[in-house]
């Protein structure tokens, strides 16, 4: 199963993580399943993302997550899109484990979208980005196996995460140097001040 992430969705996720460097952050992935032709595996098209929270309490507790899920499903449902995955960045630089909270939320999304994915920010890859000139997303992809475990997509090629636009990382680096991450609004910010829009409509204008 291939997972393609659009430039805007991808950049929002990383900028959000950079805005809140000292804590864990999470986000929801929005998109659709594109069925494959002639019985081939399809692809999951991650069209957009919504940054959610940047504090341990909001990530690990239920109420605000429920509100976010409701409103995001409602908003994107009109466009024929649904929640297709979850993004998570850990608090510590050298922590590359998928947390239990992430797995639980992933399980919940899986119930409604069986090709659900969890993306984990790869801190080391992000750090190396300016020099590495890599086109692949700075994230690790986890998908759910039949055994109900979340498995890291590895070199066996069974699942793959690709950037839809080859310029994604170039644009990302540009935004990082111009400190664009300060403009990102997440659901946490919205709940603190409802006039702030978690859709980030003006971010890429």
């Amino acid at each position, binding site marked *: 199963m291939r997972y393609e992430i659009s430039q805007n969705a991808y950049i929002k996720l990383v900028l959000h993580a950079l805005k809140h460097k*000292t804590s864990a952050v999470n986000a929801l992935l929005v998109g659709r399943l594109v069925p494959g032709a002639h019985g081939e595996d399809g692809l999951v098209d991650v069209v957009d993302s919504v940054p959610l929270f940047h504090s*341990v*309490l909001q990530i690990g507790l239920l*109420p*605000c997550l429920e509100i976010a899920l*409701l409103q995001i499903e*409602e908003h994107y449902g009109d466009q024929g899109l649904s929640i297709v995955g979850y993004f998570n960045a850990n608090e*510590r630089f050298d922590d590359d484990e998928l947390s239990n909270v992430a797995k639980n939320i992933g399980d919940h999304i899986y119930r409604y979208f069986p090709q659900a994915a969890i993306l984990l920010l790869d801190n080391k890859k992000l750090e190396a980005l300016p020099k590495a000139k890599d086109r692949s997303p700075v994230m690790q992809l986890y998908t759910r196996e039949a055994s109900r475990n979340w498995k890291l997509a590895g070199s066996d090629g069974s699942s793959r995460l690709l950037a839809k636009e080859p310029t994604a990382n170039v644009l990302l680096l540009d935004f990082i140097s111009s400190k664009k991450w300060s403009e990102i609004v997440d659901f946490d910010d919205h709940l603190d001040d*409802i*006039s702030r829009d978690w859709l980030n409509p003006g971010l890429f204008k």
Partner: protein
Amino acid sequence: MVCKAEQTELNRLESQVDHGGGGAWEYLTLIRKLKVRRSDDVVKYGSPILNDPKKRSALGDDEWTLYEQVAIAAMDCQRLDIAKDCVKALQKKFPESRRVGRLQALLLEAKGLWEEADNTYSNLLEDNPLDQVIHKRRVAIAKAQGDNLKAIESLNKYLEIFMADHDAWRELAESYVSLQMYKQAAFCYEELLLSHPTVPLHHLAYADVLYTLGGLENLQTAKKYYASTIDLTKGTNTRALYGICQCASAINQLSKGRNKDDKDELHFLAATALEKEYKRRAPAKLALLSASLKSFKLS
């Protein structure tokens, strides 16, 4: 935690300094006073002052406070060269100081030399067994190494001695939440509610934890604490207003209408308050709010 007025003042000063309008020292002083974490700015605006002998001597004794502030900020930004210089200057001025000793151990932490840092703190503790900052740094070392259970164990031991340290109780609660140990987190918030009953964030966090735990009794208590949050914040807290609706919906589902004699109108009031706020300040999102409230509708 910073209130809105303080946040506005901080941003104003930041903007002023950023555009060359001076006021760096005022900005740095406010950062120190409010204990906010703006390490990039502290290094950016503090270093030039320290590197200029004229500006430095103009500060008088505050020079050493600035050295300490920049040292810690530099460590936060991994600018260990700057941090080392600051700590060296402080050590020269205050050779036998415990405060400088703590900074030296902090520098070891910044370098990732956890064992050396921990040993340095142990030694410092021998002469100063009741130094709270040192105890908490050792908890921080456990956290930085990803050993959440050890951090929790150390925090619990710390709180047995310093049970009035409400920041530590909050830190412990958050550590429990990150490990999904919600019952233990609830206990921490109960302690905080006893000692600081008028802080709305404690009521809100306690309600969130109870809602997450679930079960009829917890939901009913959660509803009460969302209500007290609303009371303490004069109805301006969006999360608490949503919380009331969510609790009412969940309680109704669990009790399957058995509590028909519960004449509680609270969720209708909360829903109306939310609609009013969204109409006023986020009209584009009003439809989404209405959809959410519909899904909480109690039939």
